[in-house]
């Protein structure tokens, strides 16, 4: 192999302030205390961020409430102007944002640069287009915004999840209070600056930072009309309980344990790419990751050989290096969970394999890993690992593949690999998953609704369907 020389993206193109306040009513203000956000690839502290106390959440919700009247009264075309402006600013500043996202999250720069940021801008452009066409979206002749949306987002795609939440909310005429994840607040705080640059009226977007308690206080706030949450199924359940009976509208986008089904007539080289992309994209920190590989037995050996060969070329390391394929695990806590579940996989008798790869000394790292000899009875086939760990199972017939794919409490996504078009349609029809990809995986587009069955949540984000959650 010829070694690629280090090709680091410059981190100096983005300015990180030593401290950040809460973005409420168009101003940054202090909270009660602070917490540190670190670079998971080096454990270096990037900034100190304000911790929002209940009274800060009250201020944010009150600001959003004050802004709601004028904002919702604007003609849709005027709201669209702000959203288009935000989209353009994001494009113009995408290099800064990509570096910031990789620093705070640990994901490789090629992903933040080529996947996250283009999708973020596309989401704002897409929903900007809807803002003056809501009467034609299929929700009645004069759909109304709900009011103040309380939004809590995860750490795996910090800015993209923000876009998924804020773009449709604003297009529909709502105002928002958004809490980014504790470990990845920086791109949301950068976005606050984008809002100011776009002259967005104060209070339309408020960003409050903090931990789980801040999020809980926000979703339970009596003056919040709509709650949107993306994160773990466990927290989703708590939110559903707390929101029950309050009249708040709720959408939940939770965990997954997606089956990626490879039939023996699959295009093998592309299927291998799809498997790799399905589980190792974003270090496997993807709720719709293809974490259960179901391979037809007659293809098993051949596919496994190809997969291992391909995995040996994955480049794990510095997220800012443009040639890095797999970056850092987002936090020590997440690394501990991945490590624990992997050990359980081994102790339950599955065979573990990782390619030889050198992991950096500092930071949180986990080598790309596959388990073979996994059955439906293994915990690693049932529980969401949310890391670069793939469980490989086999099946004999299409019926068996469908049964196994559906035999999970989750139902967010699934993949089908076959050259036979009729089989794609027949199998997709029977899979209980919100998204089914055929001969591809982890493809996202703002025009396409995304969401789950069963414990993967309810409601849809993206597309025309994504507006429904923000209209009455």
């Amino acid at each position, binding site marked *: 192999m010829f070694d690629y020389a280090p090709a680091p993206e410059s981190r100096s193109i983005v300015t990180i302030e030593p401290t950040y306040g809460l973005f409420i009513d168009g101003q940054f203000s202090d909270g009660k205390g602070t917490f540190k956000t670190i670079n998971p690839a080096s454990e270096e502290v990037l900034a100190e961020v304000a911790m929002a106390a209940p009274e800060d959440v009250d201020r944010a919700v009150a600001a959003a409430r004050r802004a709601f009247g004028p904002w919702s009264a604007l003609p849709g075309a005027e709201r669209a102007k702000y959203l288009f402006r935000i989209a353009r600013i994001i494009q113009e500043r995408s290099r800064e944002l990509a570096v910031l996202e990789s620093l705070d999250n640990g994901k490789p720069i090629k992903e933040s640069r080529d996947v996250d940021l283009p999708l973020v801008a596309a989401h704002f452009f897409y929903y900007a287009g809807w803002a003056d066409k809501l009467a034609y979206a299929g929700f009645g002749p004069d759909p109304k915004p709900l009011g103040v949306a309380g939004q809590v987002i995860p750490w795996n795609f910090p800015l993209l999840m923000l876009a998924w939440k804020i773009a449709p909310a604003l297009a529909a005429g709502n105002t928002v209070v958004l809490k980014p994840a504790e470990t990845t607040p920086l791109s949301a705080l950068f976005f606050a600056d984008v809002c100011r640059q776009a002259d967005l009226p104060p209070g339309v977007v408020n960003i409050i930072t903090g931990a789980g308690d801040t999020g809980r206080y926000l979703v339970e706030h009596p003056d919040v009309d709509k709650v949107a949450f993306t994160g773990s199924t466990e927290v989703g359940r708590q939110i559903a309980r707390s929101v029950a009976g309050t009249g708040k509208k709720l959408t939940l986008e939770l965990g997954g344990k997606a089956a990626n089904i490879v039939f023996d007539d699959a295009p093998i*080289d592309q299927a291998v790419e799809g498997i790799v992309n399905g589980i190792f994209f974003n270090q496997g920190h993807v709720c719709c990751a293809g974490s259960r590989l179901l391979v037809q037995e007659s293809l098993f050996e051949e596919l496994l050989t190809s997969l291992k060969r391909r995995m040996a070329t994955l480049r794990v390391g510095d997220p800012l290096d443009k040639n890095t394929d797999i970056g850092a695990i987002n936090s020590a806590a997440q690394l501990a969970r991945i490590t624990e579940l992997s050990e359980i996989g081994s102790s339950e008798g599955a065979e573990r394999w990782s390619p030889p790869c050198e992991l950096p000394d500092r930071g949180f790292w986990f080598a790309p890993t596959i388990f073979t000899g996994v059955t439906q009875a293994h915990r690693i086939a049932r529980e969401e690992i949310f890391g670069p760990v793939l469980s490989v199972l086999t099946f004999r017939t299409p019926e068996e593949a469908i049964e196994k794919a559906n035999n999970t409490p989750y139902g967010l996504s699934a993949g089908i690999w076959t050259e036979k078009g009729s089989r794609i349609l027949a199998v997709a029809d029977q899979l209980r998953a919100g998204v089914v990809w055929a001969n591809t995986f982890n493809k996202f587009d703002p025009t396409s609704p995304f969401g789950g069955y069963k414990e993967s949540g309810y409601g849809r984000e993206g597309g025309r369907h994504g507006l429904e959650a923000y209209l009455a």
Partner: protein
Amino acid sequence: MTATATSTGTLRALLHGLPGVDKVGVEARAAALGTRSVKTTAKAKAIDLAIRMVDLTTLEGADTPGKVRALSAKALRPDPADPGCPSVAAVCVYPSMVPTAAAVLAGSGVHVASVATAFPSGQAPLDVKLADTRDAVAAGADEIDMVISRGAFLAGDYAKVFDEIVAVKEACGAAHLKVILETGELGTYDNVRRASWLAMLAGADFIKTSTGKVPVAATLPVTLIMLEAVRDFRAEHGRQVGVKPAGGIRTTKDAIKYLVLINETVGDDWLSPDWFRFGASSLLNDLLMQHTKLTTGHYAGPDYFTLD
């Protein structure tokens, strides 16, 4: 497979039994590998390797002995100002120009490649193609770039294509045979994979994308499929076959993308002029310019590099 088991039915079963190629997937993979960032020391190594992999080519009706002599001299010493600059792999010319090239290159280690078999269309009777091949070898070519009969391939007459390759390989004697698939005329990626296997089964030493005479020549996805084919063929038959993208590769940036494809698909074993070539003419000067830029820190104008 041996040359005796070559009915069209057997070949069809084999070629159509190969795994399919998903167009969207292969193009996405090739594009993703195209974003690799190869800089500084890695770039210097890549440029050096790419120069050594060039089949410096002139295939024009207007070729003359004078032009071919000049090209051959350039092949030996691509950059007269830089004694450290390696020679290219081969000079590729029409059969009538082989003696001229061979006279300049004799004993230098730079190979003499000749197109043959009614290049570029391949539309001639077999005996004409074989005579073409034998003449080129007799005149001093040690590499033959043949074209397959795309008409026969697209008509499903795999045995005819197979038999022609076998016959030309025999006519080559000790000369290496590169089989041009003319992928721009094959229509689908599935056909690229099938034609690659067909050529390898029939005895090709190299498989080559294009003549350079049709609008679509070498592309990254096509080369990726051919690399996967030589990798899988070696795993199954134990014989290594080389790959030569040709036509339309003009810049260092492009060439490095191909090297990245090799690096991450088939690896070290193909990262050598013995197993990978660029069929190109203008590429060489861009490689030289970048080579100079890396050593001196600044770009020299085109007049600092020889025309041919």
